[in-house]
């Protein structure tokens, strides 16, 4: 295996970006990530992105990204219709083949123009489940009920997660929902989707993120402290909500074990928990101990969750803390699909 590291990271989130199209929204973030990387734009070997046509409401959302990349002369480029964390995986694979030594990875999407919760129902089995149009929040609430029943956790435990997220987010300029709030403050909110309150549900976010990864000596040359990818693995589960145990995340557990989460201390973890109960499920699946690991110090997805880049942001947030010396080793997680169907785990470490 080649050593590959995250050498730069930039992202931007707003609640509603009505004044820029996707290309305009991506440009500053891409330029920042490339400038930070210390690698000339035209020397980056590969480009890979993640986006979702149904967010843009058109058939080729990713084509707009090429204008932001400035893909001329023509570039080696690919795209996944998945969170950009999987675009990073594809780029990491390309580097592993030896074909290239570096890659620019980005993801973007605007959730605000449509009804995101309903749009995501289009992910469901089109013949038997979609006709009922369960929103992603409806399904998450079912999962939360099942989890509370099985685990013995309470709504107070969910509120603790939500409140910590908002407190952590106070330090994060890209967080939308932040404040010095307590679990009791959260519990005063009305329950909107039993047992979830607004604070338990990610805020609608428009945004983009970009990361540059580089191999071995190149990473050492351009970064004082590269965030080395020690393991990156992903696993998918069955689609139907009735075919898996919603109170656990077996695919996260398997991906985490394969990525080597348990092979060292975990100073920091950024988990793509879009609902507060998911953080508890994920932390358990990854064997994280909240007294030893700082979980979602950025505020996590409950503070800002730009769909299609939020998973990549988790990797970037962990990498940034390693590069700036705040952490030595961390775990980033990305998810896709209803109720944590598909999960990616990335272990990052400084030297």
């Amino acid at each position, binding site marked *: *295996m080649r050593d590959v590291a995250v050498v730069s990271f930039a992202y931007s989130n707003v609640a509603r970006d009505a004044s820029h*199209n996707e290309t305009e929204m991506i440009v500053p973030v891409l330029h920042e990530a490339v400038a930070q990387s210390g690698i000339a734009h035209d020397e980056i070997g590969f*480009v890979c992105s993640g986006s*979702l*046509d*149904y967010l*843009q*409401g*058109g*058939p*080729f959302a*990713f*084509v*707009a990204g*090429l*204008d932001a990349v*400035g*893909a*001329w*002369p*023509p*570039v*080696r*480029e*690919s*795209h*996944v*219709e*998945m969170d950009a964390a*999987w675009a990073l*995986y*594809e780029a990491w*694979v*390309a580097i*592993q*083949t*030896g*074909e290239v030594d570096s890659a620019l990875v980005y993801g973007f999407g605007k959730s605000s123009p449509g009804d995101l919760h309903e*749009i*995501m129902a*289009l*992910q*469901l*089995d*089109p013949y038997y489940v*979609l006709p009922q149009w369960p929103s992603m929040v409806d399904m998450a609430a079912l999962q939360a009920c099942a989890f509370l029943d099985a685990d013995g956790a309470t709504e107070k435990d969910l509120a603790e997660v939500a409140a910590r997220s908002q407190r952590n987010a106070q330090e994060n300029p890209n967080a939308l929902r932040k404040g010095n709030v307590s679990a009791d403050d959260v519990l005063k909110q009305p329950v909107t989707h039993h047992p979830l309150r607004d604070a338990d549900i990610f805020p609608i976010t428009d945004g983009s993120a970009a990361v540059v990864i580089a191999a071995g000596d190149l990473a050492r040359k351009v970064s004082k402290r590269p965030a080395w990818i020690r393991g990156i*693995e*992903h*696993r*998918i*589960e*069955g*689609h*139907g909500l009735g075919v898996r145990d919603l109170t656990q995340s*077996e695919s996260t557990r*398997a991906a985490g074990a394969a990525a080597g989460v348990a092979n060292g201390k975990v100073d920091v973890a950024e988990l793509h928990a879009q609902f507060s109960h998911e953080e508890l499920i994920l932390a358990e699946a990854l064997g994280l101990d909240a007294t030893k690991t700082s979980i979602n110090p950025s505020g996590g997805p409950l503070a800002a969750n730009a769909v299609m880049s939020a998973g990549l942001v988790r990797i970037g947030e962990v990498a940034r803390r390693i590069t700036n010396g705040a952490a030595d080793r961390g775990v980033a997680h990305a998810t*896709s699909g*209803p109720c944590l*169907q*598909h999960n990616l785990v990335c272990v990052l470490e400084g030297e």
Partner: protein
Amino acid sequence: MAGKRVAVVGVGQTVHRTARKDVSMAGLVREAAQEALDDAGMAWSDIDAVVIGKAPDMFEGVAMPELYLADALGAVGKPMMRVHTAGSVGGSTSIVAAKLVAAGLHERVLTVAYEKQSESNATWGLSVPMPFAAPLVAGAGGYFAPLIRAYMYRSGAPRHIGHLVAVKDRRAALRNPKAHLHIPDIDLKMVEESFLLWDPLRYLDVCPSSDGAMAMVLGSEQVADASSGPVAWVHGMAMRSEPTMFARRDQVNPQAGKDCAKDVYAQAGITDPRRDFDCAEVYVPFSWYEPMWLENLGFCAEGDGWKLTESGATGPDGDIPWNMSGGVLSSNPIGASGMVRFGEAAQQVRGRSGDYQVELKTGRALGQAYGGGSQFFSMWVVGNQKPA
């Protein structure tokens, strides 16, 4: 080619039809995947990872369909990815899957591409007006016809050249039982008399709208060496992209296509594609794209593509047959069409192409796919000999 050796060890393909009402989307992809597994002599449990590709989700109305299809493709508990690079996606998906093996991460990867166009309407799906973007209100044909006219103007090609390709590829499809269109009495007159859609494209110059899927099992050198049947070794693979529109962009003969061909030929040691390949499966959704891609892919000098087509060189009995399977003009499940090209090229070098098998001399074939506004390219070179 970078990385470890990779080979196609199994290929499966559905029958392509206007509407495969006998299967769901899951049933469609499983049909192709099961055939590929059977061909490879493998069970679902042998597969390490699954890579799926298709064109825009709006063609069926299912967002990120890898989620819904995970069970049907035996991916539960495994890594699964979904690639989307417009029309080139079938090729790109093959390449992403092959890289998982080339990187040494997996031994056996299943890759599948599909489109079930009868679930929706592709021209509608391509024509959603977007703010600040040039509208594509006439679908792909309306977009490409002006580029074809520009090609005719540049090259001086006579008007019947496209029709020759339309006839040639439909006649080829008569030897391919899985092809969507079977038009036994197709001839030049029938094409010329079909109604005009977008000048110079007549109805029969245009690909159909199909339901279909293609699948391949890609294996490591160890897996390929242990295979009981013939395998197709990957000698080179490449992708290139460029933006849709900017001043001075040559949309007729795009730079990204030329760069992609140069890269893949260098990897595979191809110096004269017309001589070094036994055949090619190339994404020709509109008849005129055969002469245009002949030039873009370096099978002849710029401006001479139509002469090569007119000479019959690209026919089944010519010196460099193109699209022996009937090509995209005979079957077009959009997201799968690129993988059909890649897989048909592999079947040729495996000697598995039945009634449309070409004679193997060099044992090498080219698979090509393109997409978007002639801006996304994916290509691979496969051969019956292990690469050096």
